[in-house]
Every structure is written in C-alpha cells, then in structure tokens.
C-alpha cells in the first residue's frame, strides 16, 4: 500500500517564529520526493508534521486524502528514519526490526520470520542475533530502513539518514535507497541539505528556504529552470550578474550589469526597470576558442585555476568578492588562458536565466 501526502496551506509557528510558511504541495503515491534546503529552512519541521510529532498551526496535512490533525505518530501510516537512526542499542538486530510488529501483537515466531525476510531484503542475512552496536555504519543504516519497512508504512519518511556516513558509503546508499524504494513501491519523503542526494534519488524535489517552498519540480527542472534566485544559487554552482531589466520581450530579457548588457531567458515574466539577477552555470560559459561571437560576451581576468582532472575550473574576477566560475573540459582541444591573463567569456542567452532579485543562498 502506498498513499499520497498533501500539504494544504500548512503553516507552522513556534511562538513568533514561523518555521513553515503556507506550504502547498501534493506528493503522489509511490513517489520519491525530497525536501532540499539549508539547515533551519523548515524541512525537518514539515517532516515532523507529516509523521505526527507536531500538528500544523494552520492548514492541513492529508495522507491518503485523510486529514491527520490530532493523530499521533503511533497511529499514522508513516514510518520515520531518524537522522541518527535511533536504533535500540539494547535489542538485537532482529528485535529492532520486529519492534513495530511486537507492538502490533504479532507472535514471536512470525516476527522472527518477517525480520529474517527483511534482513534478506537489505542484504544482511543471518545478522539478526547481533546487537546493533556490532554492526558497521552502513549496516546500521540498512537495519533502520528494515525496521521502518517492517510496519509496512504507506509513507516512509527519511530525515537526512545518510549524513553520518562517509562519502563512499553515502554514494552507495543513494543507489541502494532508490532501488529499495522501487522494490517496495511506497512513497518516500526524503529530507536533505545535500543537493547531490536530492538530484540523484528523487522523482521530484521541493527546494526550501526560510520556511518557504521556493520551487517544486524534478531534478532537471530545478537545475535548468530555477524559478527564484535562491534555487538558482543553492542548487549547483551558478554565476550571478546583478542588474536592471532594460529590454524584456516575452521569452528573453536583457539586464544592464557591470559587465554591460546581458541577455537571458525571461521565465518569470520580468518587466523593464525591475531589479534582476542573471544566472549562468560554469559549464555554460565558454572561452573564445576561435569563435568570437555569442549572445553574451564579457571580459575579465583569470584569478585562480583549479585542476579537477576531467575538467579545469577557472576563476575570473567577478562583480564583487565572488569570482566568476568557468569549467573547461579537459579534452585537450585548446589551451586555457594563464593566471593573470584577460580573456573573453561567451555564453548563449538560452543557457542563462534572468530571475527577480532576491535572497541568494550563502556559500
């Protein structure tokens, strides 16, 4: 069984502080949905409201169409995986996994059988009699997933469960989580501040900042068509150019920046005279390798080079303290400019987006 989750004008306040401000979205059943945002953006608060540890100050949380107000976490068809996993250290692995079944009065024999099945699912067969402390970080991670799946929830909630793991394991667990989700077919709601996790695993992502859902969409949309300055600057790397819109013509807009007029897509319907920021990604910037013409051409000095292997990152002097980043693929086709040299930088208007001026993510 799988259920959809709806947030209908959900606002959550703690005293004067608004943690979540008028969140509206529908998570489809069987979807892998992520809330992405910096710490303190309200994503964990949303998760707690869905799991039942708190109720919204205003609005409704609906699971499978049913209003969940006042229904405790032990009565909701959700299971939560905690950031620190919160496994029970005094119980064996099998007892941990079967705890939810024990609560439901399932017989000892049945419990053990089910625990063993789940141990097979998470590829930890015959580990049921160990204490949790005897397992490695990745194994504990999987036990936590099995413990949550044992109660056959309709929605599985995950609160940054990979943050305590080292990089290699984290990347491995991403694939694993995704494949577990596809096998069990239930709705996953995943909370993270790590955009890599959100982009690789999710069907859709909600980017949050300061209690507000900035944008909801799949990974490609979020990355290629950010709708606010925050999303553009938070997800992936981006080069901002601030300015005023001087020539908006439906699909495109030109802004007057410190580097002269720059043209980009006008997805948000900006009008002349508005303050705006043009964002262009490092991989969309090119060096004048023979070609001298493009929609936008700017000129700046190379201030730093970072060799990353398959590409090289060049830093040019930008508008302020933050440099303009440009990545050059290491395909040997041309030699990049040296440190201190001035070079032209080119980019197409189609690969840049002009967004209303607004708060950007802190670096």
């Amino acid at each position, binding site marked *: 069984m799988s259920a959809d989750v709806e947030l209908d004008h959900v606002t959550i306040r703690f005293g004067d502080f608004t943690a979540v401000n008028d969140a509206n979205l529908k998570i489809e059943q069987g979807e892998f949905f992520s809330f992405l945002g910096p710490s303190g953006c309200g994503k964990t608060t949303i998760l707690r409201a869905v799991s039942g540890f708190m109720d919204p100050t205003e609005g409704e949380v609906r699971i499978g169409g049913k209003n969940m107000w006042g229904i405790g*976490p*032990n009565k909701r068809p959700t299971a939560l995986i905690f950031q620190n996993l*919160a*496994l*029970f250290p*005094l*119980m064996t692995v099998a007892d941990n996994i079967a*705890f*939810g079944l024990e*609560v439901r009065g399932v017989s000892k024999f049945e419990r053990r059988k089910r625990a063993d099945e789940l141990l097979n699912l998470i590829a930890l067969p015959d580990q049921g009699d160990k204490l949790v402390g005897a397992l490695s970080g990745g194994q504990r991670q999987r036990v936590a997933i099995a413990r949550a799946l044992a109660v056959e929830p309709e929605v599985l909630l995950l609160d940054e469960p990979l943050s305590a793991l080292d990089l290699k394991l984290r990347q491995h667990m991403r694939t694993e989580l995704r494949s577990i989700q596809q096998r069990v077919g239930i709705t996953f709601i995943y909370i993270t501040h790590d955009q890599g996790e959100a982009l690789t695993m999710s069907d859709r992502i909600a980017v949050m900042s300061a209690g507000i859902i900035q944008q909801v969409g799949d990974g490609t949309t979020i990355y290629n068509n950010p709708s606010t300055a925050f999303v553009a600057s938070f997800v992936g790397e981006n080069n901002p150019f601030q300015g005023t819109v001087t020539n908006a013509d439906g699909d495109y807009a030109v802004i007057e920046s410190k580097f002269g007029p720059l043209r980009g897509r006008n997805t948000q319907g900006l009008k002349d005279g508005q303050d705006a920021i043009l964002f262009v990604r490092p991989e969309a910037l090119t060096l004048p390798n023979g070609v001298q013409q493009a929609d936008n051409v700017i000129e700046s000095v190379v201030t730093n080079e970072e060799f990353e292997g398959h590409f090289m990152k060049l830093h040019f002097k930008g508008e302020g303290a933050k440099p303009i980043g440009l990545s050059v693929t290491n395909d040997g086709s041309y030699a990049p400019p040296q440190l201190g040299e001035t070079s032209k930088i080119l980019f197409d208007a189609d690969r840049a987006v002009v967004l209303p001026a607004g708060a950007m993510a802190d670096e």
Partner: protein
Amino acid sequence: MSEFLPLFLAVLLAILIAPHVQKHADRIWLGVTRINFVQRNGVFVSTYLVVAVVTWMLIMIVLPQIYMIDFSFRYNLLPNEIGGPKDVYTLSNYEYLIFGRPGDEDALNWLHLKVFARTIIVSVLITLADFAICYPIAYYMAQVAKGGKARLLVLCLILPFWVNEILRAFAFRILFGSGGVFNVVLQGLGIIDQPIDFLRADVGLYAGLSYAYILLMIFPIYNAVESLDHNQVEAARDLGSPWWRIHYRVVMPHAKPGIASGCTMVFMLCAGALAAPQILGGPSSLWFTQIIYQWFNTGGNWSRGSAYAFVLLICCIIFVMLVMKLFKVRFGEIAK
C-alpha cells in the same frame, strides 16, 4: 592487658621496619615517584588520596564493623569478666533472634522474627511505591521538561530536605494526627464521621518513610534516563508503540542501572531507618532497628544488638543481590 598487645605489636613492627626504611630511603622514594598514579597526580595529592581512602574504608568502616562482628559472637559480660574464663565465642545471640529464650513456650522467637519479616516486606513495598512515584517525575525532568522548568523542579525537590529529619517526621505526625489536615479535610467533606487514627494504622510511618528517600530514588533514575537519546522514544512511538510499551521496552531497559541503584539505596536505608519508625510508628508496631536500638541502649546488650544488626545487614545484602540477579543487573552498573 588487652591494650598492651596492640601497642607491643606496633612497637615491634616499627623496630623491625624503621632501620630498613632508613637504609633504603632513597630507593623507596624513587620507587614511589615511579608509580604511575603518583606521577600523574603528584606526591602530595596521591598521598592525600591514598590516606583518605584508606582512612575512610579501613579505619572508619571495616575495622569498627569487624569489631562489631566480634562483639556479636561473644556473651554480654560484666567488665570484670572480660578476658576471664567466661569470655568465649558463642552463637547464643543469633540463636536468641531465632529461638528466643530457652525456657519460652514457643519454639521460635515469633515476636522478633515477625518484626524482622515486617521490616523487610514493608521496605520492599515502600521501595516499590517510591519507584512508582519517582519514575514519572524523573522521566519528566530528564526527557520532557526544558531548561528552567527542570531546574525549578529540582529545587522544589531538594529544598524540603533542608528541613531536618526529626522536624519532617513530626510534621507528618501533625498531618496524620486525629486533628491533622487529612482528618479535618475528610471530615469536612463528610466522607468520615470519626477521625481515622492514621498513626496507629502506620499510614504515617509508611508515608514518612516513602517521603524520606524520594530524592535517592529520583536522582539515579534521572541520571540514567537523561542519557537516553530522545529520538529512541520518538522512534518507538513512530513505530506504533503505546506509551507504556515505550517505557517497558526502551526507557526502562536503558535506565535499569539507575533504577537498580535507586531501589537498592531506598531499600537499604528504609530497612535501616530509625528516626521515622520511632516518631511515626504506631504504639504497637515495631521496626527491626528499634529492637536493635533497644538492645544497645536500654538493654545494654551490645553483643545481642550487634548480632541483630548483622542479621539485618546480611539479609538485606542477600536480598538485594538476588533481586539484581533476577533483573540481570551487574553490580558495577549501579555505580554508573
């Protein structure tokens, strides 16, 4: 004569050791400074620690107790008989507790045995009652209350214990007396016609004893529960657990050492309490410590008093050990 022997031994020891110490003073000093413990804490602090612990354990606890054990196996003799032919070891003091005077009608000393049994049973019940009262408070303080509220609660718990034990006990007499708050309220509400004699029914005693050791129950449990990750409580709840199962399966197993430590302390102190039973006990009821006190004090029979006290101590220790074994608590854990 009896003072001469230890003195003689001490002098002999000094004469034997002193030249040796003098001769090898340098090497001994070097050896001492090489001990890891001394190196870490310095000569002054480590000397103090060793002397303090040895004084506390050996001189103030072990030696007097050995003296009392020795007492308990001797006859209660007149001063001029000590060291004489009558001064021999005997089990008669222990026999008396069990069988009474040889000439008595009953085969067993029912009076004292009953008091003993009652003391143990009531102590167990008071321990259980204290646990039932204190566990929710400790849990609230450790996991629910935040900052200022928890501190205020701790203050409210500690401050009443500044009032001394006698005063608190007499206050309970007033509370439970025939003109006390409880009777007045119950009569005022029309629930009872005649005042109930709570003191004769030992209600005052039980309440007083329960109250006296509340802190000793709360704080060990509080310490243990506080170290529990609150996420575990939430995880259990999220998995569908009702509150009582969360406590039974998650919180209590975690807090077991604290619970064991609180319960043993309350039980031991309760069984060994004297002031509360003296002041709050009904006229016809006795606490075992009161009998011990009578042997020492009015009875003037220190030997028998020591024997009774040791029976109480040993039985309490055995009882505590059995219960700990039953609940699979290791001895070291209660010191956590």
